[in-house]
């Protein structure tokens, strides 16, 4: 039996990466994610891996993509300002179907914002930050052990589907230290990219198999719209290829959805939360249930592709849905869209860099449920 240890969120992320097989990291110092690079600079060489501090975040993701095409599982980590700089190459990774993991420890923003305060303000940027239609997977976490698990999961999905995966943390979770028992080797699945059976006649941009540089595959990798061989294509061919890579992720929205559902069977009111805010929701649900309110809770780990059907089925019998998030209203709009006007959906936000409290959530739900009863 492994002993409990006191682990910081950023450290759990770095250890999760090594566990998942990450052997290349490139980053640029930025609060509140720097400890990830510091840990990996110390630990990666011990396992034969490489950690590089770059000249900026554009270079960080460029090096990660280069390393991934060299065959390494590769990751970078940053916060809002660096995440903005990475958008260019997130698009490149998406269209070239390059497996890579991008961690964004969110700070209150925009711009330099409040580097040491938490936020969930990058949810839409994670989905739509780079230009053009593109596939992406976005995961999040709420507890330190979950940061470890979601980092491993981010690598697994990225390698399995050849898609960039973004892991959204936040300042509080990144810096939080919790007593945890981290997974033993072999406890979590670790997935690596699939190689085609033969190099002969293989199409490098056709399915989820991948050949890397130095294998004799005569690869052509470009950010231009391309055909299945990697050479520039326009018109119908470009559209077909884009549809293929979009469908690869969007059509799997339900199977990619990681979530925890609590008390949803009899729920009149449903709270949909994710990330750091879920910790407050957990406490508020306990309090509201003790008060006798039929409150359910959907705790999302996969934000994109958005699990639309899941939201619909979980809110089918509810009269009220609350989406607390540390922003001015981002994921709430997706929830509204999924619910389609059948139920009142409300947002509870906060922009001062402090966390939403269990009391705020409980008070809001209590008021609304009472109000709806009266109506």
């Amino acid at each position: 039996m492994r002993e409990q240890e006191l682990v910081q969120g950023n450290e759990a992320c770095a250890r999760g990466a090594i566990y998942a097989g990450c052997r290349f990291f490139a980053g640029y110092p930025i609060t509140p994610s720097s400890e990830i690079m510091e840990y990996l600079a110390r630990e990666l060489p011990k396992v034969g891996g490489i950690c590089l501090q770059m000249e900026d975040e554009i270079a960080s993701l460029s090096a990660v993509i280069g390393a991934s095409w060299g065959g390494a599982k590769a990751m970078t980590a940053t916060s809002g300002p660096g995440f903005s700089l990475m958008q260019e190459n997130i698009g490149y990774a998406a269209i070239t179907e390059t497996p890579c993991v991008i961690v964004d420890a969110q700070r209150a923003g925009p711009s330099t914002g409040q580097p040491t305060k938490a936020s969930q303000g990058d949810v839409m940027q994670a989905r739509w930050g780079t230009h053009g239609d593109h596939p992406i997977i976005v995961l999040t976490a709420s507890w330190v052990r979950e940061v470890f698990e979601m980092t491993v999961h981010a690598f697994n999905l990225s390698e399995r589907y050849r898609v960039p995966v973004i892991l959204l943390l936040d300042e509080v979770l990144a810096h939080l230290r919790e007593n945890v028992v981290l997974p033993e080797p072999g406890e979590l699945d670790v997935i690596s990219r699939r190689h085609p059976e033969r190099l002969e006649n293989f199409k490098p941009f056709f399915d989820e198999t991948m050949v890397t540089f130095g294998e004799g595959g005569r690869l052509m990798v470009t950010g231009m719209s391309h055909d299945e061989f990697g050479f520039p294509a326009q018109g119908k061919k470009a559209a077909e290829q884009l549809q293929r890579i979009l469908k690869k992720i969007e059509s799997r929205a339900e199977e990619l959805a990681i979530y925890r559902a609590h008390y949803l069977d009899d729920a009149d009111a449903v709270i949909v939360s994710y990330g750091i805010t879920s910790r407050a929701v957990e406490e508020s649900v306990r309090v509201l249930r003790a008060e006798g309110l039929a409150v359910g809770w959907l705790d999302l780990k996969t934000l994109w592709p958005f699990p639309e059907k899941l939201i619909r089925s979980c809110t089918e019998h509810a009269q009220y849905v609350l989406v607390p998030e540390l922003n001015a209203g981002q994921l709430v709009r997706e929830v509204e869209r999924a619910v389609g006007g059948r139920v009142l959906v409300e947002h509870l936000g906060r922009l001062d860099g402090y966390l939403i409290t269990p009391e705020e959530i409980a008070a809001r739900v209590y008021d609304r449920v009472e109000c709806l009863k009266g109506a």
Partner: protein
Amino acid sequence: MASEPREYLRIERLPHVWCPGCGHGMITHALACAMAELELDPKQTAVIGGIGCSGRTAFLFDMDSMHTTHGRAVVFATGLKLVRPALTIVLALGDGDAIGIGGNHFIHACRRNLDLTAIIYNNAIYGQTGGQVAPTTPPAKKSTTSPYGNLEHPFDIARLAIAAGATYVARTTSFDFADMVKFIKRGIQHKGFSVIEVLTHCPTYYGRLNDLRDPYEMLHTIKEQTVPIEEWDQLSEEERAGKIVIGELHRQVRPEFVESYYRLIAQMQRLQENSVDGH
């Protein structure tokens, strides 16, 4: 092993997209010749380009190749080289690509000294986007965004590379075919970050806007401006004015980064084993 230049090229991709009279095909030809003379194994060689006319080079070589985002080719190559040290990687960069949008990456690549070879196709203009001013456009020269003459001072790429720490730096012109091949070969053979700046001609934009629309005339004008390094030292300041020094400008032995990193890995892993044994 291939030993004919054409064996290194994706012949089926020809003709290339460059304008008639452009110098880029000559540089590409020189690169293919250098590869053939070195008898490089195409399976262990890669060409990486950025965005712009020069970036199209990556599509022409029959080996693993990458056409990256604008200015970032050198950093994509950094990640790739670190995890695949056996690969010979050649970068085909434009002047705007390498030291305009990619200037920060370029100087840091010079400083890091990875074993990469960067060929910079310097035509002193942004060609692919239609002839805008570049950080290499000489003073007073016209472009579509310096219609009254360039007011800015240009970068000297070779000097910038030397100052930033590149360990092999040569400059030549697309006129000097034999020198292009020679310097590219030496750059590839050199263990460290090598920069080969090739001054080349863009008759379509630079030429048309600056009264040099004939490709040969423009090529010849570039050649006339240059002075071999062997003669440069004998020139006075006045004689050097308006001239550009060409040749092998810098060669230095300094630890190569990939080797240094793998030495660190070996050292850390030995320490790990020893501590496990001793426990």
